[in-house]
């Protein structure tokens, strides 16, 4: 019997590891990132418009980086949400069982394509193509970044949204059709509202993924740390900044701390999104009468 | 009756949370006899039988009061070896639940978890158990096929063989024929009549005719109370309690 208790204790300790890592990440980001606030001041850091970490004296204003992340993510959602949710609706409503059986796994498989492949593709094919097509000075800009990110996020959004739609009980649909509504009306007035929270979760998680994406934006958005005034100029989102500059930052120096601080902001942002997605999805399950 | 008492339940009260499911049950299970527990749904018969091998321990928020004596000890005492208890008091469940393993592995499982390593011994025991469960002839050529390929009745007999392999003293049957067709039911009933030569048997059934056919003693429970207990032939012909008579004649339940 003592051995059994031992096993239970060992497993409980190991299980807490995930909590441990989460806490560990938080601690590290704080300890390595906070020093920059000492140097540069919180306000100047977050709202400063100039990011020149390698100048002498260096400037650590991250507003251009945050703005870049914001715009690129927004653009990605404009591409990814209609395509993702639209595809989900297609699979759920219009696809026959055989088609569905092919499409669902297919989309899931496509969600696994590594971001570096997307970034690479964006850089060598899409950017030059758009440059010619739209007559812009360079194809490596926020627009291209948004486009590629949106395509990257769409399988994820589609999968989660389709799961949400399939959870809506058949009885809702049948009741609506029995009252004389057609399929489109049933879809828009009954099914989508019922799955609303689930679809929102899909969008929030897609957004979280887009904000956190590194390699794609690194290779495609151009890399100019300037607040963008249009979609067609090069920008440098937060993730790309960390990836591109950590190599040259002096260990323990101000630049190093500044990059960790950006990491901290990124972490808190996605953490925040995840909490919201969690709350929304809980409401969804309660609404449909599933277990909470 | 010359048979000695194998299990004795004294003043058993059982609670699911605040709801009382068993009230002051006093019952004796006689050695190498078949004791049937009958009563309408929700009367507590399954709850009671699951106390005998402490399977109710698995359900959270339950409480038991009273004592159950087996082999000279109250099974609810602190230092009781529950694992050993369950080996000596085996159970066959309502829905056949063979493991997703081969037929052979299903029967040898109990031996392995009890530390038996001798391959020859295990093999002999498996054959013996399958024989005792009247399944050997049907499966002897496919011992290494998946158990899930057997029919419902065969699966239940496999579960019985699995239980027999660890050499219990008592076998608890919790509505063993509930999900079986009449022919399989018949074969299980015949098997139980054979088994009682070697094992003490307690069977829960909602089929009174089954109880009348195969049991030596019958306990009639209703809403957690033990209404009547005695020799089967007496209970079914001259029941002492009015409620028993009404249940047996189908006035309720």
């Amino acid at each position: 019997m003592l051995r059994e208790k031992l096993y239970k204790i060992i497993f409980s300790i190991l299980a807490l590891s995930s909590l441990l890592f989460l806490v560990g990440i938080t601690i590290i980001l704080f300890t390595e990132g906070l020093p920059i606030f000492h140097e540069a001041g919180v306000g100047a850091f977050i709202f400063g418009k100039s990011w020149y970490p390698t100048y002498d004296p260096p400037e650590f204003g991250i507003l251009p980086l945050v703005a870049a992340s914001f715009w690129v993510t927004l653009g990605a959602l404009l591409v990814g949400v209609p395509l993702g949710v639209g595809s989900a609706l297609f699979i759920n409503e219009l696809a026959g069982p055989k088609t569905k059986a092919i499409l669902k796994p297919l989309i899931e498989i496509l969600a696994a394509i590594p971001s570096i492949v997307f970034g690479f593709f964006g850089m060598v094919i899409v950017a030059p193509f758009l440059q010619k097509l739209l007559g812009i000075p360079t194809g490596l800009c926020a627009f291209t970044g948004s486009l590629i990110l949106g395509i990257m996020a769409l399988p994820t959004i589609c999968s989660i949204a389709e799961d949400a739609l399939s959870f809506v009980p058949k009885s809702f649909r049948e009741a609506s059709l029995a009252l004389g509504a057609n399929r489109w009306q049933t879809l828009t007035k009954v099914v989508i509202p019922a799955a609303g929270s689930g679809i929102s979760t899909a969008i929030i998680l897609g957004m979280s993924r887009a904000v956190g994406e590194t390699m794609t934006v690194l290779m495609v958005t151009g890399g100019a740390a300037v607040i963008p005034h249009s979609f067609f100029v090069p920008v440098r989102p937060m993730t790309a900044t960390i990836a591109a500059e950590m190599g040259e930052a002096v260990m323990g120096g101000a630049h190093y701390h500044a990059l960790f601080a950006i990491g901290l902001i990124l972490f808190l942002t996605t953490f925040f999104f995840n909490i919201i997605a969690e709350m929304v999805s809980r409401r969804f399950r309660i609404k449909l009468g599933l277990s909470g | 009756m010359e048979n000695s008492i194998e299990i004795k339940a004294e003043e058993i009260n059982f609670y699911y949370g605040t709801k009382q499911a068993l009230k002051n049950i006093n019952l004796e299970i006689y050695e190498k006899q078949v004791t049937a527990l009958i009563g309408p749904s929700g009367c507590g018969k399954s709850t009671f039988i699951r106390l005998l091998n402490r399977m109710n321990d698995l359900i959270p928020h339950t409480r038991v009061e009273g004592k159950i004596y087996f082999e000279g000890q109250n099974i609810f005492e602190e230092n009781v070896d529950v694992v050993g208890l369950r080996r000596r008091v085996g159970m066959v469940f309502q829905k056949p639940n063979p493991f997703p393993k081969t037929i052979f592995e299903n029967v040898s499982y109990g031996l392995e978890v009890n530390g038996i390593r001798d391959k020859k011994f295990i093999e002999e025991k498996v054959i013996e158990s399958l024989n005792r469960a009247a399944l050997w002839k049907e499966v002897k050529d496919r011992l290494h096929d998946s158990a899930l390929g057997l029919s419902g009745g065969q699966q239940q007999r496999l579960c019985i063989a699995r239980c027999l392999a660890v050499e219990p003293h008592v076998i608890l049957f919790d509505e063993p024929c509930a999900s079986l067709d009449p022919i399989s039911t018949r074969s299980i009933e015949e098997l139980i009549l054979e088994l009682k030569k070697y094992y003490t048997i307690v069977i829960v059934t909602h089929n009174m005719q089954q109880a009348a056919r195969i049991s030596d003693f019958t306990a009639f429970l209703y809403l957690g109370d033990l209404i009547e207990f005695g020799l089967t032939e007496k209970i079914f012909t001259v029941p002492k309690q009015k409620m028993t008579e009404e249940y047996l004649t189908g006035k309720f339940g």
Partner: protein
Amino acid sequence: MKNKLTQHLGFLLLWVAIILALFFLGTIIYFVFVKGISIISWEFLTEVPRRGMTEGGVAPAIAGTLYLTMGAILFSLPLGLACAIYLCEYSPAGYVVNIIRMSINNLAGVPSVVFGLFGLAVFVKFFGFGVSILSGSLTLGIMVLPQIISASQEALIAVPQSYREASLALGATHWQTIKKMVLPSALPGILTGVILSIGRAAGETAPILFTAATFYTRGYPNSIFSEVMALPYHIYALMTEGTHPEKQTAIAYGCALILMLLVLLMSALAIFLRQRQRSFYGK
């Protein structure tokens, strides 16, 4: 009449959505395949790079990716499986389960570059492992941990409770039941999680940027403390460093193709396994 028109329009939009989605994704796969296949050769897969990354093969990068991925799984599988076992089989008090579950979900959403930062500060610097296979594997391992836990949990929960009851009723202890009954049954599901994690770990760049990867190594790594080349990083480096864009782009296509095929294969395998497991229990 108006309703019918709206319906036709609406459905048309949905058709457009799915077609565009498949088109975009298909284009990427098509281009990478077509341009990459021409450079793939036995030499490409087995030889070291020559002439400043413009000729030869990418074998060290393939090896590096293999080592990093294996290391990640070695670290995260025992840990993740143990966590899943604890949550499913030992069923701790409600609030503990919720805290752990929330941690797992949040860990799953952390951006990959943040894992890289964590790995840099903790494994490379604090523990002093330096830029190495060890640091990279550990970092990747933490990244795929939530995936392993989720898949393992799903697999464990799918094992019917009646089996556990039957096992305990035969006199098996809790741990014996888990070891001999539950785990073997849950194996396909757990494997699914491992396969998906292999795909993920192999394809990620940001976590290994500061912890393991380098553009050029002389030959193959000789210990877990060496830095390595890795396929995803190699693609990035080829495109951003070096002096011969055309040749390097061609090599990058080859790497992208290998990586993409690897990941797609893993994904398809995992889904196939999952379908088979579902139909097995559907009996």
